[in-house]
């Protein structure tokens, strides 16, 4: 990955042009031709750096319900439980997390979205039944920042 690839990844994360030839428009911004940009983007997709280019739906504004959830999974059951959780259509993210500061009763953290609050409750209840574990939910009260754009060109940790 060279610096042009990093610039492409930075630029591609949001504001993908809504014009009939978006790669030509983006290429013009980046100072390269449409064909070169298409070739590089295809290579970045093949390398697995780009998962997809598409619309990122705001679950709440699209009328969906969502929550963060967590469970305390015994280590010997981790693979099986994580597999059950990931298999749920409602689950979008699922991570094993360990505390590096402080203590935490939960180790598996995941997010769910569903068509309605009732469907969300049902998805959580289904996972609790399927895993035999209690699932704690932590719905958001206020969202202060929902951007997910990362600069690859700069130090990502700089304040």
């Amino acid at each position, binding site marked *: 990955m060279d610096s042009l690839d990093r610039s492409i990844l930075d630029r591609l994360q949001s504001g993908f042009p809504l014009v*009939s030839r978006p790669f030509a428009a983006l290429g013009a911004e980046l100072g390269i031709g449409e064909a070169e940009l298409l070739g590089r983007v295809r290579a970045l997709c093949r390398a697995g750096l780009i998962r997809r280019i598409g619309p990122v739906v705001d679950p709440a504004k699209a009328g969906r319900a969502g929550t963060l959830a967590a469970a305390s999974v015994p280590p010997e059951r981790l693979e099986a439980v994580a597999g059950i959780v990931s298999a749920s259509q409602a689950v*979008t993210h699922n991570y094993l997390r360990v505390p590096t500061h*402080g203590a935490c009763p939960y180790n598996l953290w995941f997010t769910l979205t569903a068509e309605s609050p009732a469907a969300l409750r049902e998805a959580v209840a289904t996972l609790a039944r399927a895993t035999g574990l209690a699932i704690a939910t932590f719905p958001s009260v206020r969202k202060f920042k929902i951007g997910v754009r990362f600069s690859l060109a700069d130090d990502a940790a700089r304040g």
Partner: protein
Amino acid sequence: MTLPVDDLDRRIVQALQDGLAITAEPYAAVARQLGLATEVLLERLQAMLGRGEVRRIGASLAHRKAGIQANVMCVWRIPPEKVESAASVASQFNAVSHCYERAGTPDWPYNLYAMIHGQSEDDCGAVIRAICERTGQSDYVALLSVREFKKTWTRI
């Protein structure tokens, strides 16, 4: 109940949500498939962006592969009246991608959540310490992501 996203908008998002084709005219192919003029599809998408139903149109990256290796979910326990100012401090950091207030429980009384990304665990730790310093809040738990079992996007 009427959902904010109407049927045509929903069909447009459904046709695009698994990814645009990496071709010169990716919208035209989808518009044909839906029996729409490309301009109508683009206008609809623009309107969904304007209403916030679509947050952005862009690439979803595999951050680990792209060199952003470490991800820490940091949670603070903060008095309710101080949440807003602490959140505004945390949100100013580029390394913070998400910052939410969430309801605490007796077992887990933490109420401010920040998702922190960096090249390393140490990078994330430095950001956390800076947030603690600037907010004066130090009752926190840092949760490092050690395995990613699933990472996808909301499909409608």
